[in-house]
């Protein structure tokens, strides 16, 4: 639900209004981080300069930051979409893995396809695998009442086991030079290319975010998803197929996560390898919350997180700061960005009227 502000005065002002609180929040988080850095004897300015350099300093760094941002956007969108239907998708991790391994398999197993076709095919496969992996908790939730938080956590572990098995068993790279559990390299025809320093996967992610936004805001399907999330009884009364909708919300969520996994395999890693996608699903939750369950917010928050992840090693290298500090700063950012109230008090900003955001309240809908 977006809130309408009828007055259309200065759009610059409007943008400033919407971003000033998050900006100040980021600033506050960096300040807290600086204090910790100072206490531990490091030079915060140097550290932050290194962090920034590592994230955006040259084309290579920028490229890496965008590479790191891409899967976050997908995972964040996945969590967001489920939120909208009142469901808490902790399963993005598993869905992402399923997508990643399927795309990785299609990427190496199919030979001799023209590039674009091969990429599309592998992406479709990855999306389908993710969607399927969202379908399971969706069906269980709708038709047996099993809570999606439990089932998706469990499915995450099952996905890890399953992909480990495949990577160490039937789909293992059996070439002489390989000894470890992983799939063979994908064919060149399946590699998602770059557009200058910008990974094409990143562009796809932005596009998908826009599509999701449009879907949620402008289409009947989005309206139905939102309705089910807010009041499933009233949605049924209004003639919506609530069980089907909840199931499809998790299917779409799974598809998005699977998409992210595929893009990761085809665009960044080049093969499926256990451990290469660790933690992305949970980062998706962070990103979704930080982005306030808004697809554009998800893009921004993914960029922020992606930059921090991208710059972390340079910060460690140049400023001799352990990268754990990144976690501390990240959690502070999450805190301040969501703690409008604190920021507004701190910086004496009066509350804008409206602009209330609905996030999920608890374990999805009751």
């Amino acid at each position: 639900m977006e809130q309408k502000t009828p007055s259309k005065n200065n759009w610059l002002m409007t943008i400033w209004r919407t971003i000033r609180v998050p900006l100040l929040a980021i600033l506050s988080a960096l300040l807290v981080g600086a204090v910790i850095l100072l206490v531990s004897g490091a030079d915060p300015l140097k550290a932050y300069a290194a962090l920034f350099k590592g994230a955006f300093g040259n084309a290579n760094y920028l490229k890496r930051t965008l590479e790191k941002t891409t899967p976050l956007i997908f995972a964040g969108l996945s969590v967001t979409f489920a939120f909208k239907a009142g469901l808490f998708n902790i399963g993005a991790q598993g869905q992402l893995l399923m997508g990643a391994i399927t795309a990785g398999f299609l990427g190496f197993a199919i030979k001799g396809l023209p590039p674009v076709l091969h990429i599309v095919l592998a992406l479709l496969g990855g999306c389908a695998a993710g969607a399927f992996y969202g379908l399971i908790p969706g069906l269980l939730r709708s038709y047996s009442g099993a809570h999606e938080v439990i089932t998706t956590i469990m499915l995450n572990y099952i996905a890890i086991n399953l992909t480990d098995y495949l990577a160490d068993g039937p789909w293992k790279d059996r070439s002489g030079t390989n000894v470890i559990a992983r799939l063979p390299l994908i064919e060149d025809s399946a590699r998602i290319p770059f557009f200058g320093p910008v990974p094409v996967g990143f562009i796809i992610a932005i596009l998908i975010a826009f599509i999701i936004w449009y879907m949620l805001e402008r289409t009947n399907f989005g309206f139905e998803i939102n309705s089910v999330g807010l009041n499933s009884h009233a949605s049924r009364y209004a003639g919506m197929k609530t069980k089907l909708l909840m199931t499809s919300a998790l299917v779409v969520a799974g598809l998005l996560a699977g998409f992210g996994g595929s893009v990761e395999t085809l665009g960044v890693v080049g093969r499926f390898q256990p451990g290469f996608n660790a933690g992305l699903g949970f980062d998706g939750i962070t990103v979704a919350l930080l982005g306030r369950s808004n697809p554009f917010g998800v893009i921004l928050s993914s960029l922020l997180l992606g930059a921090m992840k991208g710059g972390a090693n340079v910060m460690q290298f140049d400023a001799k700061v352990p990268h754990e500090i990144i976690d501390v700063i990240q959690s502070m950012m999450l805190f301040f960005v969501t703690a409008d109230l604190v920021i507004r008090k701190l910086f004496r900003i009066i509350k804008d009227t409206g602009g209330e955001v609905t996030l999920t309240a608890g374990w999805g809908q009751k």
Partner: protein
Amino acid sequence: AKPAPTPAPAEPAAPAEPAAPAAATEADCAKPEVICIGLVTDVGEVDDKSFNQASWEGVVAGGKEVDAIVNYVETKDAKDYVANMQLFLDKGYDILVTVGFALGDATVEAAKANPDVKFIGVDQFQGEVVPNLAGLIFDEAKSGFLAGVLAGKLTKTKVVAAVLGTDLVPPVVNFNRGYVAGAKWVDPEINVISTYHPGGMDVAFTDPDWGATTARQAIGQKADVVFGAGGKTGNGALIEAASNEGLYCIGVDTDQWETVPEAHKCLVSSATKAISPSIVDLIKMAKDGSFPGGNYIGSSALAPFHDFEAIITQEIKDALDEGLKAYDANAITLPEK
């Protein structure tokens, strides 16, 4: 909280000692007369009490020998291997140590692209020879076998256990294959109960509670020797064994007498692979121009018995010698996994 990335004494995880040789700094790495050695860890910390740490200790010790500036970067995301190597290459480092099989591809590529820089790839088997890249590999099954023989000799219940990290990486599997073979070589009747951690790569080596509980479960069914092979997961198993009377435990990778003091009560020995000394050797070879491309096999053996010297009878020592001979003569067949 980490050992300082400057030259430091070779003690594990000792605090920084800022005395840099010849007052050279990292900025001088590009100069030919200044030797700089960089280390890129596998996902994990440089003080992981395991192969990252052992490698770093090797780098520090080697750096001392050749008067070099040393530094490390910890990898947080597996996708950053290349980027992390590039950090050193951009600064003009001369020797790069990359730790772990997972960095293998990235290291080969970097070595090919930077023929003037020497690369040491720990645990990286080389399929083809790149002259400036030495793949430091070990015969883990060998020290595993010796551990198995030791266990087979020490057990009274005829049940010995192994608590292992993941089987997704060969070293762990090889340790276990050797261990099983060793115990059975002593007495085919011995029941070897071994378990791999059921989780993925990201947790398999960092789950000491699982290791401890699993060791306990093995001890409960009469296992009296526990082989803990799997980073911190294995360490959990060692510590659990130490809290029981009359049990023995065997560590892995390095001499764990140094890294897991909580296990002193049971730690008879460790199935080591000599990561640190081999790295020191390779660094020295890099300096005097005898750097070997291709695979470089480091030694693997049992660590000293420390406090248990008295218990290790001559008979056991003989058996170990005999076993080693049999192993070297390829007279031992290892089980599948």
